[in-house]
C-alpha cells in the first residue's frame, strides 16, 4: 500500500476526531429540523413536518415568502459571481500581458484594497450608495460585494494567466488575430480551471454573505436567505425547529453544488497546457 501513509489508521482516528464537532453540528441541524424536540442529539417526540411550514405558507410571522428570499439570494450570488469572473479575468489578462504606465503601483493598490476588511468601509459605502440612489436595492449590494471581492479574483486570475506560455498567443497574433480574439479564443479557454475556481468561490461567498445585505437592505422584499434566517434569532423565544429547517434549506443548494459539481471542482487543481 504505497499510497497510504504509515500509521494510517491512527491518522484516520485523528481526522475523525477533528471532524466530529462539525459532524455533530450538522447532525443536530438535521435532527432539529425533523423532530419536535431534540435533547442533545437524541430526538424526542414525533416527526415535526410543521417545522417546514415556511415552504408552503405564504409568510411566516409577517416575513416575506421564503421563495422571494431564495430568488433574491440566487440573483445576488449569480450576479456577483458573473461580474467577478468577467471583470477579474479581463483585468488579470491585461495586467499579465500588457505593459502600461503605473502597472506595478496599480497591482499594489489592488492588494491594499484586498487588505481592507469590508466592515471598516461600511459607513463610507452607505454614503456612496445613498448618493447613487442604490441604497436598499439588490443591485447596490451586488456591486459592493463584487467590487470588494474583485482584488482577490484579479490576483487569482493573474496567476493563471502568468502560467500560460506565450507561444500560442504569439502564434495567433502572427496569424492576424486581434488582441480580443486572442483573449477570448486562446487565453480564456486555457484558464478554464481558474474561472471555475473563482466562480465557485464567488458564488459560495455571495451565498453566505450576511453583513452587506444586513446593512444595505432595509426593506423585506429585497431580503436574501441570510437575512430571512437572521429574522428568526429573537430576543427571547426561538422556534429552533423552524430555524433549523430554514438553515437546512439555506445550506441545501451549496450541498447540491458540491455533490454534483465535485468532479469539476477537483479539476481546479489540474489543467493548463500539456506538453
Amino acid at each position, binding site marked *: 500500500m504505497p499510497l497510504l501513509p504509515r500509521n494510517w489508521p491512527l491518522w484516520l482516528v485523528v481526522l475523525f476526531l477533528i471532524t466530529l464537532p462539525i459532524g455533530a453540528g450538522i447532525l443536530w441541524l438535521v435532527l432539529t429540523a425533523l423532530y419536535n424536540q431534540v435533547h442533545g442529539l437524541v430526538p424526542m417526540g414525533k416527526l415535526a413536518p410543521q417545522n417546514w411550514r415556511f415552504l408552503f405558507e405564504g409568510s411566516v410571522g409577517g416575513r416575506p415568502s421564503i421563495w422571494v428570499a431564495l430568488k433574491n439570494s440566487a440573483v445576488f450570488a449569480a450576479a456577483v459571481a458573473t461580474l467577478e469572473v468577467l471583470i477579474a479575468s479581463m483585468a488579470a489578462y491585461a495586467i499579465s500581458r500588457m505593459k502600461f504606465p503605473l502597472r506595478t503601483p496599480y497591482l499594489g493598490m489592488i492588494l491594499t484594497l484586498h487588505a481592507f476588511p469590508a466592515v471598516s468601509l461600511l459607513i463610507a459605502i452607505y454614503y456612496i450608495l445613498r448618493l447613487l440612489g442604490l441604497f436598499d436595492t439588490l443591485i447596490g449590494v451586488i456591486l459592493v460585494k463584487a467590487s470588494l471581492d474583485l482584488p482577490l479574483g484579479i490576483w487569482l486570475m493573474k496567476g493563471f494567466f502568468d502560467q500560460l506560455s506565450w507561444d500560442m498567443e504569439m502564434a495567433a497574433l502572427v496569424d492576424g488575430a486581434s488582441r480580443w480574439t486572442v483573449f477570448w479564443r486562446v487565453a480564456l479557454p486555457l484558464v478554464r480551471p481558474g474561472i471555475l475556481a473563482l466562480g465557485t468561490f464567488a458564488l459560495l461567498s455571495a451565498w453566505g454573505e450576511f453583513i452587506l445585505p444586513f446593512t444595505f437592505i432595509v426593506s423585506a422584499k429585497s431580503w436574501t436567505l441570510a437575512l430571512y434566517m437572521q429574522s428568526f434569532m429573537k430576543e*427571547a423565544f426561538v422556534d429552533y425547529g423552524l430555524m433549523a429547517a430554514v438553515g437546512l434549506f439555506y445550506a441545501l443548494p451549496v450541498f447540491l453544488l458540491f455533490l454534483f459539481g465535485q468532479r469539476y471542482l477537483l479539476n481546479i487543481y489540474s489543467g493548463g497546457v500539456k506538453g
Partner: protein
Amino acid sequence: MRKWWILAAAVLALTPVFAQKTITIKAWTIGPDDPSITRLKNLEAAVDRLNALLAIEGADYRVKLEGDFDTTDWDPYLRRVLLAFQSGSAPDIVQASAAPLIGVWATAGYIAPIGDEVSRYGTFKDVFPTLWNAVTFKGQIFGTPQDTEARPLYFNKTLLKKLGWSDAKIAELPKMIEKGEFTWDDLLATAEEALKKGVIERGKGYYHRPKNGPDFLMWYRAFGGTAYDPASGKLVFDKAAALRYFTWLKKAVDAGVLEKDRLDGNWKRFHQNVTDGKVLFFSGGTWNWAEWKSQWVKDRGGESWLWQHFGFALQPAYEKGGRPVTLSNPQAYMVSSASKHKALAAKILAFVAMPDLDARHAVGSGHLPVLQATASLTENRFIRAVSYMLNYTTFQPQHPDLPKWQNALYRGVSAVESGQVTPEQAVSVVATEMKRTLKDQVMIK
C-alpha cells in the same frame, strides 16, 4: 393590416383597466413579541376596507400595502428605520414607541405632523384623550396611538402558598399594593423569608428585565423620583430618590434575593425561569402574558396555567401609604416626511382606529386598547383585570434627549447590582454622567 386594427382595439378596450392606478404604501412594524403581529395585520385589514370603499366610490386608484413585521429586537429595527430615514427611502408608515421617539424623529424632521388629517376623521375621536399627549410634540400631533399597556409586578401564587400564605391573603395582595400597604421593603422581606425556608433558589426572589428599557424610569418613579419638569421642559434627576432605589437594589443583591448578574441581556433566561415557576416576584409587561400563554406555557395549559400560578399587581410604593405606579409606553403609527402619499397614509391610519381591530390586537397580544369603544367590546378576562392599572400609569417624558438620561440611570443600576460601587457612589456617577451628556437639559436635585 387587419392585425394592427385588432391590436389597437384591444389596447383601447384595456385602457380603463390600466387607468386604475395602484398606490403602494410601505409600512414597517415591530413586536418584537410574536403575538403583536396584529400591528401589521390590522394595517392590512384597514387597507382591504379602504379598497372596498374605493371600489364603491368608483375611485380611480387602489391601495397596496407592502408591510413588514420585525420580530428580532428594537435595536436592529431602529437602526434600520434610521438608515431608511436618512437615505430618503423610508416607508410611508412607521410604528414605534411614541415617547421619546416622536420627539427625536420630529426634531430631526423625519416624521410629518398629521394634526389636520387627524381632525378630519371621526374614528380618532374615540381614542383615550391622554394618549394624544404621548404622540404630541411641541403642540403638534405626529402620530396616532396604536396601543398601550401597563407594566405589572407579577407574583408566583404557588410559591407564596408554599411560603404559608393563605389563598385569601394572596388574592388580597394586589389590593394591598394599590393601597400602599405592601411596599418594596415588604417584597424584599417576603423574598428573604422564602429563600430562608428553601421555597426559592438564591437570586430568584425578584426578577426585573435583563437589559435597558423604560422600566428603570418606572422603578425610579416608584421610589419617589421625578424625571421631567413640564414648566421648563427639562429632564430632572432626583438624587434622593435614586439613592433610595439603588440602596434597595443593593440590599436585594446582598440578601440573595436578586441576582448579581440580573442584567445579563438574556430574555430567554428571564422567561424560562419565570415560566418554570422558579421566581417569586417579577416585573414585566402585560404583553408578556400573551407571550407566555402562546409560547412558553402553551404545552402546559396556556392561559389557564397562568391564571392558576401567576398573579399581578402594580409596582409597589417605597413607603407605607405611598402611591404605586406603572408605566405605559404607547405605540404609535407615524407618517414619514419623505412619503409621497401622506394624506393617504393618514387615511389608512383612520381605518385602523376601529374597535374590532383594536380589540383583536389587545386580546391577541396582551396590550391595552386605545379606543374607548373597545373596552365594552372585549370580554377578555386579563384585559379587564389589568385595565385599572391605567389609573396609576405614567409615561416616558417626550424629550429628545431622554435616551441619554436613561442610559445614565441604567449605568448606575448595573454598577450597583454587579457590586462595583456603593449606592452613594452610583448616584454621583449618574449625576455626573447626566450633567456631561445632557448639559443644561437636566436639573439635578
